[in-house]
Each structure stands twice: as structure tokens, then as C-alpha cells.
């Protein structure tokens, strides 16, 4: 990298950049946020002013070179930005969902490799303390073999506070609905904890409106790395209904439960699913900001060392494949 401070450009001045990334990047040692770019220039200028960022742009081509960019625009609107980043040799840290299809995901990873840049993906639940604790507990078979997994994230979406132009009301921009938007987190969290290698026997169903799925259910058998046999995994994500939210992994001797937020510890459940105790750990985030900080630290280290880290985009391909296959299965 050109200078001591890593120069970062931010593409997209929306909620995720403002609420999740700017607060941690602004105080990360050795990082300089060089510019902020948004197709609505006034929005970029406003956010840049608020965070003391020197320059704001409305056109990505006009932005000066940086070491890496945060790509925080909807998945369906990223093609040009990615092509330009690769052309200019910028590393890319992309918010989830990484790609609208497995083919697109692979294409981006390959183009990045050709361009000699690193690409990371912001699946921040990988950096929850609970994810690491659960993964280690399962790997050690402390509770016996895994029998089945139930993962759900479902809340009736009420007031959105968003006007008609909201990207999630536009299928082309959002890449789909709740399955890709919320499911990308849930699926990745489960695959991380299990150490998933592949899946088969996928069945899926969607409830949709205007091409946007509002509820998705999927069941598949997941093969774990280094473990014989497969584990049946059940997913449901919904904006239509309030349902149980969390991941329950049933093992032979006990079950463990982890939540969709960083603060929730891993709980060990008895045979009647009542909580027995919690599992403690020392690594990983336990509040809102820590996982974002940790993913940026991993990504910047990957850019420096050129060794794939936990955020490496290629490592998220299985999740994208699963979601892609679930959409295809449900539409058959």
C-alpha cells in the first residue's frame, strides 16, 4: 500500500455505511477515509461533512485512487462500481449480500483475482463471539454428534419509515427479498458454526409479492467438513410473521442455541429445551460495533498479507449457492 495509512473510499452514503462502518472506520488506527461517493451527491456531502471526510463525490469515476473501498450499495447496482474498482486496483470490501447468484459471486471472485485485488464480504456474524464458541463446541463434539439444526429469523415488518424509492421494494436492486437480505446472514451463520462443506436434497418454498419474497423456507442436508454423514438443516426467514428467531443445534446429549445479535451468549439447552447454562469465550464481538471492527481488521490484514481471511469473498460462496439454489427450487 502506498503510504502508512490505509486509504479507504466509501461507496454508498446509506444507512449501513453511516450506522455500521463509519463509526468503526473513523477510529481505526492506521486508516484514513479519503472520500465518500454516492449517486446523490448531496447525500455524500452531508455524510462526509458530518464525519470530517475531506472529499465527497457523486460519480465514482471522479474519485481519486485509494487502497480499498467499502461497497455499501444494493447488490443489484454494483456491477459498474466493481468493474471500476478492479480496473483501478482497489481492494473491495462488499456489504452482504455479496452477489445475486452463485454465478455472479464466482465471476466477481475470478475478476478480482485477475485484477490482483482482494475482495471481502461483510457477513459480520462470523465475528460474533457466539459463532466462534458454538463452532468450537460442535467441532469438539462436546455434546455428541449433531442431529439437526433449526434456524429462523422472522419478524413481521411493520412500519419501514421508508418512502417508495426504498431499494428493498425494488427486486432488481435488492436482488430478491427476505431470503437474500436476511437469509444471507442466517445461512452463513449456520454454515460457519457447522463448518459446512456442501449441501444436497434442498427443498424450498417462498411467499412473494411483486417478485420480492416476503417469507422463505428451506430444508437441506448439510455435509460438515471432516465429519461423516449429513445434518438436516431447516431455515425460515420471514417479514410476514413473527416467529422464533435464533439457531438451535440439536446434538445427541444436549442442544445449543445462539441468537441473531452479538450480545446473546451460546445457551446450552436441556432435553425439554430449557436453558441449563451458557458457554463462555474470549474472542469475537459481543455488541453491535465489535463485529464490524473485527471484520475490517481481518480484511485489511488480508489486503496486506494477501492471505485469505475470515472475510474472504470466496469463503462465502457456499451460502450464495444455497440461496441461489433455494430461489431456483422454489420457482420450479
Amino acid at each position, binding site marked *: 500500500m502506498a503510504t502508512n495509512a490505509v486509504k479507504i473510499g466509501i461507496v454508498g452514503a446509506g444507512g449501513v455505511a453511516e450506522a455500521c462502518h463509519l463509526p468503526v472506520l473513523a477510529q481505526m488506527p492506521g486508516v484514513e477515509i479519503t472520500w465518500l461517493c454516492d449517486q446523490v451527491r448531496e447525500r455524500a456531502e452531508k455524510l462526509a461533512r*458530518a464525519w470530517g471526510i475531506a472529499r465527497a463525490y457523486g460519480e465514482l469515476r471522479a474519485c481519486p485512487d485509494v487502497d480499498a473501498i467499502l461497497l455499501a450499495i444494493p447488490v443489484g447496482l454494483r456491477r459498474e462500481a466493481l468493474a471500476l474498482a478492479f480496473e483501478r486496483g482497489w481492494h473491495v470490501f462488499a456489504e452482504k449480500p455479496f452477489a445475486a447468484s452463485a454465478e455472479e459471486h464466482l465471476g466477481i471472485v475470478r475478476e478480482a483475482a485477475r485484477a490482483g485485488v482482494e475482495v471481502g464480504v461483510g457477513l459480520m456474524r462470523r465475528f460474533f463471539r457466539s459463532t466462534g464458541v458454538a463452532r468450537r463446541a460442535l467441532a469438539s463434539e462436546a455434546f455428541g454428534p449433531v442431529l439437526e439444526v433449526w434456524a429462523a429469523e422472522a419478524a413481521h415488518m411493520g412500519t419501514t419509515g421508508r*418512502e*417508495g424509492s426504498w431499494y428493498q421494494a425494488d427486486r432488481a436492486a435488492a436482488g430478491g427479498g427476505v431470503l437474500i437480505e436476511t437469509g444471507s446472514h442466517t445461512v452463513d451463520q449456520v454454515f460457519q458454526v457447522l463448518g459446512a462443506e456442501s449441501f444436497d436434497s434442498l*427443498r424450498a418454498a417462498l411467499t412473494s409479492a411483486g417478485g*420480492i419474497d416476503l417469507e422463505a*423456507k428451506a430444508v437441506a442436508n448439510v455435509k460438515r467438513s471432516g465429519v461423516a454423514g449429513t445434518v438436516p438443516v431447516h431455515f425460515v426467514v420471514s417479514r410476514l410473521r413473527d416467529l422464533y428467531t435464533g439457531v438451535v443445534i440439536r446434538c445427541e446429549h444436549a442442544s445449543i442455541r445462539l441468537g441473531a445479535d452479538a450480545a446473546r451468549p451460546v445457551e446450552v439447552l436441556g432435553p425439554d429445551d*430449557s436453558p441449563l447454562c451458557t458457554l463462555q469465550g474470549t474472542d469475537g464481538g*459481543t*455488541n453491535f460495533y*465489535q463485529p464490524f471492527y473485527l471484520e475490517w481488521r481481518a480484511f485489511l490484514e488480508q489486503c496486506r498479507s494477501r492471505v485469505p481471511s475470515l472475510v474472504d469473498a470466496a469463503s462465502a460462496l457456499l451460502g450464495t449457492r444455497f440461496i441461489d439454489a433455494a430461489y431456483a427450487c422454489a420457482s420450479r
Partner: protein
Amino acid sequence: MRVAVTGAGGRVGSALVASLARHRELDVVALVRNALAASLLGAPDAEIRVGSVTDPAASREALAGCDAVVNCALAKGWPSTARQQNEAILRNIAAAPDVRRVVHFSSVAVYGMCVDPRVSTFAQPRPDSSYGVDKLREERLAARLFGARQIHHHVVRLGHVYGPSQWVSRDVLERVRDPAFALPFGGENPSNAVSIEAVAAAVRGLLRGDQPSGVRNLFDAPQSSWRTLYDLHTRLLARPPADSLAEAESLALRERYYAAARQPLRNLVRGALGSLGSVNLVALAQSEAFRYLVHGPLLLLPSPVGAALNRAYVRRKARSALAQGAPPARTLPSALMCAPAVPGPCFPTLDSREATAAMAEELGAWLHGLWSYRWDACALGRAERGAGTRPMAVAGSR
């Protein structure tokens, strides 16, 4: 009568739309802000309009032809912006040419979170939260605006709403999941809660009846205790009843909440002095006492200054979070559970036992969906296979 429900995508709003639309004498118009929210509403008997009631022109269009409005809308976000938007909603409703009757939802939060009847009365409520302060301010604005235009209006100080999809029922479920949870005062305190069924019945009554304009409380009649409320939920879930917190602990907890509400300044100074040298500004800024004290002055600041202060706060919050260890394990019972009944009369509505019985089946099914992580996966291979569709609503569609 054609009645518009603003904030129709929200928990209370969507339940009201569904309930009101079942009554043939009412033509219900559900107002939501985008097409996705419209498709989530699932109210086949209501007309759905997509538009913003914070914008005067869009609001005129959205409320055209409506004789009455039930205002469930609540803008959130940066305090000054949210306040402006909530007040704009009231102004736009008052300016709608066809509207002759309004039901505006306020909250029992105007009396304070842990109501102290010695200082907070029906005529002179004393809120102790920024939410309560804003709600009281809206009440007064509503009375002024609607009174000036001779619009028949009812300001309803809504109790804590429970029922399928409602916040209180969700909170009960989350608390009874925690084996350490215990109800203060054995749950014998009045809950100041109201079932969504009773809210819907009261709104129908207010839309039809000839009660004079004014402010009214709305909670269960007869008042339900927290014990009644918790027992209803645990019974529907087939779970054991919640434990009771010892009397001494309950009293100590209530005193703590009272002290915080009564002496915000002293509390603030004591908190700051107690941690002098390592003042946790984030915890301070998040405290209700601080919000209560600085809320008003903050709203007077020009918005760039306010926004800059907000950024400074977010920076500090992130820095504090990044340095933080594991989160605290236990949450205390809320101030609401330590409070006595809110002062003042209650608008007569459905008998709470009837209301509870009417929604028990739906509430039970909803609670089970939240409690149990299992679902019928076999169905995926049969009836559910493939894509179900819902219509994507557009402005004015029915």
C-alpha cells in the same frame, strides 16, 4: 363512514385495519409509505394507499374522501426531525378538507414510566421520558389544531397494548424465557395494559359515538394485573407461571425508578460524580434522566449543530463499545411493572375478560410460533412447495 388509518403497517395500526375492516359500516383506508409495506399488510377488506402523511401534498391525496382518521403514525429517529414529522402529520390531518373526526393515539407514557400518582395526574401528567414528553406535546397540538377547525377529536392515552403481534406480548414471552425472571410485587400491580381487541372496540365506539372531544385513557376494564397478563401468556404457552419477586426487592426497585423520575438532575449529578475521572458519557447520554433534561434544549439547536452532536455521540458510543467486555447477563423488570394504576378515568370498552377470550386462540398460535423453533418441514414437499404470491399494492388499489 370512510376512515383512514395512518401508520397502518405498524403493530397497532395493522391490527386496527384488520379489525375495523371487518365491520361493514366502515370503509377502511390503510395508509402506508411504500409498496413493500403495502404487500405485507395483508388486509384484503381495506383499501390500501401508498403515500406519506408527513408531506402536505401527498397527505391531501392520501386522505381524499376520508371522513375520519385514526392516527397511529409515529415518526422515529433524530429527535428534532421525528418531532417535526409527528407534528407535520397532525397539521396535515387537520388540513385535510374532508376529515371531520379524528382519533389520535397518545400514550400512558405521558404519566411517566413508573407512574407516581403523587406528582403525575390526569390533568397535569408529568412524563419522565423523551417519548412521554413528545406525546404530551402532540396531545396539546392535536387539541389546538383540531379544535380550531372544529374537527371532532379524541386523544387516547393508550395503555401497553398486548395481543397477537403486540409489543407487550412479545416482551412477556422474552421475559418468561429467562429462568431468573420474577414479577415485582408478585405481579399484583395493575398493568395499565390493554388488549388489541379492546383498542379496536374503543376506536369503533369513538368513531360512531357522540362523546365530546377530549382526552381519554384506554386500558383494560376491569384493570388487569401483571399477574393476570403473565398467567394468560404462560397458560397459552403451557409454561409454568412466572415467579414472584420478594416484597422488599420490589419496593427497592420501585423506589429506584421513582427517584430517577423525581430527581433527574440530582440523579444525573450523582451519577457523574460517582464516576468522576472515568465518566461514561455514553451511558450518561443513554440515560432517560439525561434525555429528559437535554431533550428540549437539543431540539432548539439548528439541525447541523444537532447532527454534529449526534455524530460525536455515535463516535463515542462506538469507541466505548469497542472497548467493552461481555454484556451484562441479567435485565431488571421494567419500571412499568412497579407502577400503580395511571390516574384518571378510562374510556369504556370491551370487558377485558371478553376481549381476552376473543383473541385467545390467535394469541396462543402467535405465541407458539415465537416460542417453538420447530415447524412442519414435511409440508415443504407438498402443499407449500413452490411460490405463493401476494398482490403488490399500488396507490389507490383495492
